[in-house]
């Protein structure tokens, strides 16, 4: 009897002993499980990264309903990307990029904002007793270009399965510091939308004619940042060079760095521009899908009418909110930009995809930026 119990325990243990994580480049097909890629996986109650997988973060990230994001990049042995000044790096075929969306758990089955968490806070992995994993998106560079695959985590948080048609996940977000008059925390119910693979192109096909998918965050200005990880402090670009993933990196004074949108030591304008660039610039650029509007919010576009200053809308429809200028200098409450970034109505909101909640902290920044502009449209 005792032996049988031991045997069962041993069997159970062996069943639970996972294979070591080994990243793989899968050159074709649609891998059904996130585990097939071997880049990230659950081990001992944590989401961990395989050896050789480099986590990274951005100076200013895209807002996604307050989700935290764990980003990774991996390349086959001996391969490396080539540095580019403005665009996504030139990545070799075989590169696998992942982004895991998660929320810290909060009371009563709700979740808390994770967007303030940094690599230094989460360390080498995510403690699943404290966070809820939602989805992991894989972007892989194949011989015929980049391909995108969204994987949705199961309820037991043991694995994630390909969901090419996307998924709508009802959630409730409890935000610290927000209480009603009885001191009860205020929470927001929302539908988290996992994008379908065509919608991945809605953001990642930054050239709307070429239609090829490209990474958005993996650019010099977003990655040029000091981070602390496992007790060590380093610049992320230097680290990519050190691990052999990047070549051609010029010295720091030959690079342009996007500010952290939350960095109060930086003037309002560059902070607002950094937020607009990462949240809007992939569509609102001279080559992006939103070039139909004549409104360019990418980092490379100049200030002026094309940034929305005094600019009348073209085809905003009800997205005008009743206002007649994209940015009415000095008047944030009469600016279409404020209205659309603050709206959660699918027919009016911007960005069109990727959020169901408004990014209140960024709205406060945009408001200060516009309010500080000299008023008037001569």
């Amino acid at each position, binding site marked *: 009897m005792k032996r049988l119990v031991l045997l069962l325990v041993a069997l159970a243990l062996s069943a639970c002993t996972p294979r070591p994580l080994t990243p793989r480049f899968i050159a074709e097909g649609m891998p059904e499980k996130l585990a097939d890629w071997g880049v990230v996986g659950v081990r001992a109650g944590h989401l961990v990264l395989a050896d050789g997988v480099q986590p990274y973060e951005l100076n200013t990230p895209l807002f996604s309903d307050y989700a935290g994001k764990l980003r990774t990049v991996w390349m086959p042995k001996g391969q490396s990307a080539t540095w580019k000044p403005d665009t996504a790096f030139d990545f070799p075929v075989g590169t696998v990029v992942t982004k895991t969306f998660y929320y810290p758990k909060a009371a009563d089955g709700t979740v808390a904002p994770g967007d303030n968490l940094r690599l230094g806070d989460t360390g080498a992995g995510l403690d699943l007793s404290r966070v809820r994993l939602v989805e992991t998106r894989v972007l892989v560079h194949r011989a015929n270009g980049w391909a995108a695959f969204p994987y949705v985590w199961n309820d037991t948080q043991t694995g994630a399965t390909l969901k090419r048609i996307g998924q709508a996940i009802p959630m409730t977000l409890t935000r610290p510091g927000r209480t009603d008059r009885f001191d009860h925390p205020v929470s927001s119910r929302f539908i988290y939308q996992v994008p379908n693979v065509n919608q991945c192109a809605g953001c990642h096909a930054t050239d709307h004619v070429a239609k090829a998918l490209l990474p958005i965050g993996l650019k010099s200005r977003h990655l040029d940042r000091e981070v602390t990880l496992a007790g060590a402090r380093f610049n992320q670009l230097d680290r990519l060079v050190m691990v052999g993933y990047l070549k051609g990196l010029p010295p720091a004074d030959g690079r342009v760095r996007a500010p952290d949108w939350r960095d109060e030591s930086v003037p309002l304008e560059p902070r607002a521009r950094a937020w607009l660039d990462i949240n809007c610039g992939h569509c609102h650029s001279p080559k992006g899908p939103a070039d139909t509007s004549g409104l360019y919010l990418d980092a490379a576009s100049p200030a002026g009418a094309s940034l929305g*200053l005094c600019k009348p809308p073209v085809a*905003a429809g009800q997205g005008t909110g009743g206002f007649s*200028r*994209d940015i009415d200098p000095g008047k944030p409450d009469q600016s279409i930009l404020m209205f659309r970034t603050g709206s959660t109505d699918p027919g009016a909101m911007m960005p069109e995809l990727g959020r169901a909640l408004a990014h209140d902290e960024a709205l406060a920044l945009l408001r200060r930026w516009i309010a500080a502009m000299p008023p008037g449209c001569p």
Partner: protein
Amino acid sequence: MGRGWNRALGALTIAGALALAGCGQGGGSAAKPNTTYQETLIQQLIDAKPGDVITIPAGVYAIDRGLSLDADGVTIRGAGMDKTVLSFKGQAAGAEGLLVNASNFTIEDLAIEDAKGDGLKVNEGENIIIRRVRAEWTGGPKTSNGAYGLYPVQVRNLLIEDSVAIGASDAGIYVGQSNNVVVRRNRAEFNVAGIEIENTQNADVYDNLATNNTGGILVFNMPNLKVSGFATRIFRNRVEGNNTGNFGRKGSAVASVPAGSGVVINSNDQVEIFDNDIGGNNTANVIISSYFSTGYMNREGVAPTFDPWPEAIFIHDNRFTPGGNKPDGLDLQALRVAKFGVTGSLPDVLWDGYVDVKKFKDGKVDPALAVCVDNGAAQTLNADAPHKHKSPALVGDAVRCRLTPLPAISVAAAGPIPAERKVPAPGKP
């Protein structure tokens, strides 16, 4: 006496029928919608490859998120615009019902109802066919309705035919920044703008019905865009009774269009309007205007390269029936009364009078850039907007000139212009 009553009752009956028609044709969505089909459809759209035909059987399908298609060479085909209905009434995400970024795309025989944003948007692509598609907001005209019904933008070689657009809070059929376009035999009702051609080059718009919109057919140029529009022909259309109060969201371009506008040109060039039936539009049957008149002009926010003057406009051989008797807005009402008396009407053509003096030749408008109205007895009023309406005047003889007719547009899928004119009938109440 009795006869008077009869007439009054007759008028009431017609008014009642119109009010019912205002509710649109929501009948299609009355059946209990199928909520599970959307996943099948999304999967098909994702897996679509060139040459694929995605067939959607008859039925009403509830869709709660925006659909999108990226693959070239795909056809989406329903069983009829009143049989296959994609209902977005419960849409929680997505700025369009269906968003397409693809070439060689055909969509036909289905309806897109109650999208939260635009109904169908085709953004960038060549050889686009939209045929027998109905885009409708079923609750009648409302500011909260989506902006555009059928919305191709930045496309080349476009055919929109035999389609229906109802209830858009901006334009029912909106062709933006496109080239080589045929829009024919469509019905646009109860939209702010029935059909709008904007920053588009080489368009033929014919055999359409535009009625009960705020403005029937619009040909506009907007600033700050990469291309400006020119060369549009509007012919053989019926543009009648476009008197629905403007329900566009303030700040949008069409929010400046007065209710009761038949055909409206704004800042566009080389527009030829001929052989149409235009009437019963209470502000004016035809309006020729500049961006200066929209109220949106400012030096800072409008690119200096933008040309706001409507030039080379040729209006001839239309059949006008009375309009202009009840223009929208106090200014136009005052203008009507001042010029034509309490019971008088604005003439068929209302022109704001802006001309670009920089392009003058020998101190006068270059004849090649003129506004020409050679339409029998039709009168033109120059509202003298550049001088704050100080001296509005009928300018019949001064604008009686002719321009070289524009060539026909050739879109392969459309073939030649049919000899027989077939304009759709208004929707049934």
